[in-house]
């Protein structure tokens, strides 16, 4: 899957003058066109890796700003741009979307959505990006619609309601195109929704299938929920999944069961919350599932981009899927069967002694939330969160953002409010321990063993994903505005630039007119960087 990636830049650029529509074939072969950034994670394997190497360890010091695009929208920008044939498409909070000329940074169009005055959003009006197919780009919206926009004008081609936003449903993640369908996962795990992953026909907007992340009446697994708690059990799917074209399998992470800190009313494993589900992308049928945190009471959504890796384990070549999980463990599964292969902690873990041979956590007693508060590591934010991880086929290391904190988890039966549609339904709260400092880091893990190979510590409060390149670089950012290039082998910092506002997403790369660019959003702006041309 990765062998096609070693293309010289010159060869890639030959194709860039050919303005073609995005086809399903181009998406499958995204690694053959590293001058584009065709989807959220760059390619279907979720690796957020660029085969471009014009910018590399030896010259990264010459990286310099080329242009800036200011969205002018306030709020946390968690968007990943996509780049197709000379045009960059990005989103901003409140479902703004833009097309920008990559040569100049000048906008070509701007889509602005008329959103309801009040919306049930747990964590702000974020959007994480677009998907593209044909002459259209697609966005999931905060009011739980899916829209298709004309890629040349931004005009609405279709707009369908997926669910009732008044009941707490929303979309914040970037959609994924598979063949002729646009696939979206819903958010709303804090509002007692019943989560789902939807597929819509890209041409008509008609819904092709829906996979409920919680089994319904009479379905297998519904008995993992006490009573009718499955009806408002959460398990959202708010981060973009991955796809293996050869296996024709879609891999998607699911979020917390609800209410997330109060478990007595939903006793049982609560399938398929905090899981990775493997689906048939043509029908939405479940092929297998793996649950990372059965009956979670610490808000450890497993909404991570799963990375598909081909690697030899114990002398046997295997098709793997790797996840650095919010619960503090790094997992590797067989992506054909879902079989558990390994799990190792990558941060401080106090809730489980280990993960047993079947992939089930061996729990430490008395770690559930309590009225007085229970200290547990990792925090409710998790050892990592939604932030994009990256895998480099050159270093064969898995890179990810790591959040080092323990929380006090509280839950109190006497004050549990009843479920009300569209209202928060979370069963209490968590907050940091007084006198304990939060640390953030970029970590590199060997997916063959799960061992941490290096750690780069940032100053407090980083909230950025990571991105790796064939130039031997890993890019990340800190909460104070530094955009940072690390040596992919050692984690040593090689270069940084102060962009003036926190970086809260991951970078991408593309090339135009023979120049490789690195693009990243900091604050309300997208910054495009390339090597300084010699005088």
């Amino acid at each position, binding site marked *: 899957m990765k062998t096609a990636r070693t293309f010289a830049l010159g060869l890639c650029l030959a194709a860039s003058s050919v303005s073609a529509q995005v086809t399903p074939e181009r998406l499958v072969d995204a690694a053959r066109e590293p001058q584009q950034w065709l989807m959220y994670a760059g390619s279907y394997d979720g690796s957020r890796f660029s085969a471009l190497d014009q910018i590399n360890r030896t010259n990264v010091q010459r990286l310099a700003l080329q242009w800036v695009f200011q969205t002018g929208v306030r*709020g946390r920008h968690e968007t990943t741009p996509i780049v197709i044939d000379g045009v960059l498409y990005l989103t901003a909070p409140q479902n703004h979307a833009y097309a920008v000329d990559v040569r100049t940074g000048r906008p070509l169009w701007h889509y602005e959505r008329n959103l309801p005055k009040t919306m049930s959003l747990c964590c702000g009006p974020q959007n994480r990006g677009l998907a593209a197919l044909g002459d259209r780009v697609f966005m999931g919206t905060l009011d739980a619609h899916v829209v298709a926009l004309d890629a040349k004008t931004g005009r609405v081609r279709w707009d369908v309601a997926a669910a009732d936003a008044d009941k707490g449903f929303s979309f914040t993640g970037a959609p994924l195109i598979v063949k002729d369908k646009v696939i979206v996962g819903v958010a709303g795990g804090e509002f007692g929704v019943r989560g789902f992953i939807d597929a819509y026909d890209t041409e008509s907007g008609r819904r092709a299938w829906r996979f409920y992340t919680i089994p319904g009446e009479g379905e297998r697994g519904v008995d993992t929920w006490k009573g009718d708690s499955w009806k408002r059990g959460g398990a959202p799917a708010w981060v973009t999944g991955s796809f293996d074209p050869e296996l024709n399998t879609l891999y998607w992470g699911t979020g917390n069961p609800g209410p997330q800190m109060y478990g007595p009313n939903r006793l049982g494993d609560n399938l398929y919350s905090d899981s990775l589900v493997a689906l048939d992308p043509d029908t939405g049928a479940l092929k297998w599932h793996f649950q990372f945190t059965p009956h979670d009471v610490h808000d450890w959504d497993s909404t991570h981009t799963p990375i598909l890796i081909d690697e030899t384990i114990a002398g046997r070549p295997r098709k793997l899927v790797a996840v650095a999980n919010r619960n503090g463990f790094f997992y590797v599964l067989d992506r054909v069967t879902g079989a558990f292969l390994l799990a190792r902690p990558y941060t401080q873990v106090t809730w489980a002694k280990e993960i047993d041979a079947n992939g089930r956590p061996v729990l430490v007693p008395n770690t559930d939330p309590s009225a007085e508060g229970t200290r547990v590591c990792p*925090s409710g934010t998790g050892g990592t969160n939604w932030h994009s991880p990256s895998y480099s086929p050159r270093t064969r290391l898995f890179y990810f953002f790591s959040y080092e904190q323990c929380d006090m988890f509280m839950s109190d039966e006497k004050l549990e409010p009843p479920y009300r549609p569209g209202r928060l339904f*979370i069963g209490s709260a968590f907050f940091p321990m007084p006198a304990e400092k939060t640390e953030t880091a970029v970590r590199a893990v060997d997916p063959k063993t799960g061992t941490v190979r290096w750690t780069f510590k940032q100053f407090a409060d980083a909230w950025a994903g990571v991105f790796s390149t064939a130039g031997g670089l890993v890019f990340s950012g800190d909460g104070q505005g530094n955009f940072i290039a690390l040596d992919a082998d050692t984690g040593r910092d090689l270069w940084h630039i102060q962009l003036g506002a926190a970086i809260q997403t991951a970078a991408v790369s593309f090339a135009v007119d023979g120049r490789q660019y690195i693009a990243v959003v900091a604050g309300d702006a997208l910054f495009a960087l390339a090597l300084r041309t010699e005088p």
Partner: protein
Amino acid sequence: MRVTNIVMRSALAAAFIGGLTFPLSGQVASPAVPQAVTRGAVLFRQECMFCHGVSARGGMRGPDLTTGMWSHGGTDADLAATISRGVPGTAMPANNLTDDEISEIVAYLRTLQQPTAISAGDHKRGENLFFGTARCSSCHIVNGRGGLLGPELSTVGSARSRAYIVESIREPGRQLTQNRAFGDSIASKYDTVTAVTSDGRTIVGVPMNEDTFTVQLMDTSERVHSLQKKSLKSLRHEDRSLMPAYDLNRLSSSDLDDLAAYLQSLRNTSSAPKGGSRENR
């Protein structure tokens, strides 16, 4: 009975700040009808707690709501507007609540606030201590007089309770630690930082800012230093304030009363003191 329960439990949760106090704090009088407070507590748990924490002491996304400091206005109407409309550009959303529900939440929040009653001390004597023998003004500025190293205290009487002021004098490091845990970026501004440069100079001060690669600090002579971490021999953060603890040897109980009375008299003319907010992480 139920109210008592709620308060008891919240007090447990907030035990480290000294619990809760009835009745209301000074700024605005909401009619604290017990049933309204109970309903407000349940609503708070449903609508607000995820961000602001169980006891409203602040959480991962929202600031502490018990300090009496309101970044977006502190009257009942201001609070209702903030709850209803949200704060654009931050994680604080607009909320689809009825006016009654909002006033119940406000009533509940009022029960959590620290009292700001004026203490019994002599504030004139306190002023003399502040600018004289207690040497507070060597680091703290009040209405244009004093040093730059510590927080300005010109309106501290509006922003902080007497209990907070007393604790800050007796145990200056304590609030730093607690506030940092709740994401108050102000707190880490008054840590003690010691940098040793490559040529062996030691600089002790408070950080003005810091990131992964650099630190900017003000030393005890109010000189500002911009330092590259890689060029330093060492950089040490300490979870303590540069301010000495004014224990009984340094400051008698009656002097403390006088000083607290002076600080409490330093009030903002506006009812909406700024500060304490942490937005958009």
